[in-house]
């Protein structure tokens, strides 16, 4: 044990000296990271609203393909808590029977946007398309 500690002393020529500049710099960067993380999380914990998820579904683009009309949609959670397994449904009415397509989005954090797609047989641009979120699970 004594020899081990002696060699360690020797490896560091002046144990009483000030820490090198690089140590101060890296510690300062670390402090900044810690402050950013704790600051933002703390601010969010104290001030964040806890309203239920409020999900708006928007049409982004329609692309005709040989396999149907691919309709890209965007779900925006305006509420104050996250939603999981969000079922997004689009009902296309117009000529004949209304056509329904749905998709499940895994996770939409609050104040965030997630995109997905619905596929219709008929052109959604020609009829009346109603998009909405049908349900969700609470994010654990």
């Amino acid at each position, binding site marked *: 044990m004594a020899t*081990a500690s002696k060699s360690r002393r020797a490896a560091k020529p002046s144990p009483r000296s000030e820490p090198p500049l690089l140590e101060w710099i890296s510690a300062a960067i670390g402090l900044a990271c810690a402050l950013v993380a704790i600051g933002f999380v703390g601010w969010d914990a104290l001030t964040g609203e806890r309203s239920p998820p409020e999900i708006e579904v928007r049409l982004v683009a329609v692309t005709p393909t040989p396999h149907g009309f691919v309709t890209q949609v965007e779900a925006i959670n305006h509420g104050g808590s996250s939603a999981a397994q969000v079922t997004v449904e689009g009902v296309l009415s117009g000529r004949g029977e209304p056509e329904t397509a749905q998709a499940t989005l895994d996770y939409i954090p609050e104040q965030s946007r997630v995109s997905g797609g619905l596929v219709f047989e008929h052109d959604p641009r020609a009829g009346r398309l109603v998009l909405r979120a049908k349900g969700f699970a609470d994010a654990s």
Partner: protein
Amino acid sequence: MDANAAYGRALARAFGGALLFSFPLLMTMEMWSLGMAVERVRLLAFLLLSLPMLLGLSYYAGFEPTFRLKDEVLDALAAFGVGFLLAAVLLGVFGVLGQSGLSFRADLGKVALCAVPGAIGALVAGKQLGEGAPSAHQKERAGTPGEIFLMAVGALFLAFTVAPTEEMILIAYQMGPLQALLLMALSVLLLHVFVYRLGFPGESRRREAGGPLRTFVGFTAPGYGVALIVSLYLLWTFGRTDGVAPHEIATMTIVLAFPAALGAATARLVV
């Protein structure tokens, strides 16, 4: 200048250690969703607790052979920075961060959650990857509170790698009460054998002098207690205990305490 170069090498080692220790978590899907979903108050508590823990760990296994408080604080902060930056860079490379539409707070949550295991890795690396001798000098000084603290860090560290996964809950659901008791007995036995019987480095022979029963009561039992507490704390942090029946919480805690006990036992090998 020379001191700066030496510190630079230590810092590079710290990054290596952080990488080795935290990449399994960075590449686990549950960590990303938990980073977004964990209740902010619990994440805040976790981050605030992690700083004194890093400080204590720096005292026992810093990446610089020092004893002074100023250096411990600098080391702990630098380690947090290493873990944080590494998590940010790697998650960014994996395409987890900056997905269009996800808010900044979601990204920050992911990085902050992954930063802590990285920071532990950064501190431990000083000893594990270093060319110098292990800090036998410091370990010798670790009294009972020190040993308990190191066991807690080891338990936290190993339990953390599996705590976020769904499997912990699934295993708890699959196990009956008898199996839970069996797993508990196995955990305690392994903890005892690993630390005091197998002759790994860091085994405390000093304590063995008091007789097997005293060793068990004095160290193995507190070690398992620490493993249980750490497990319950992690489950609570990750929101796994919310609305769950008490006996299921107990089973989950026992399941997670198995890796935690192994971590507590091997803490003295790693840290």
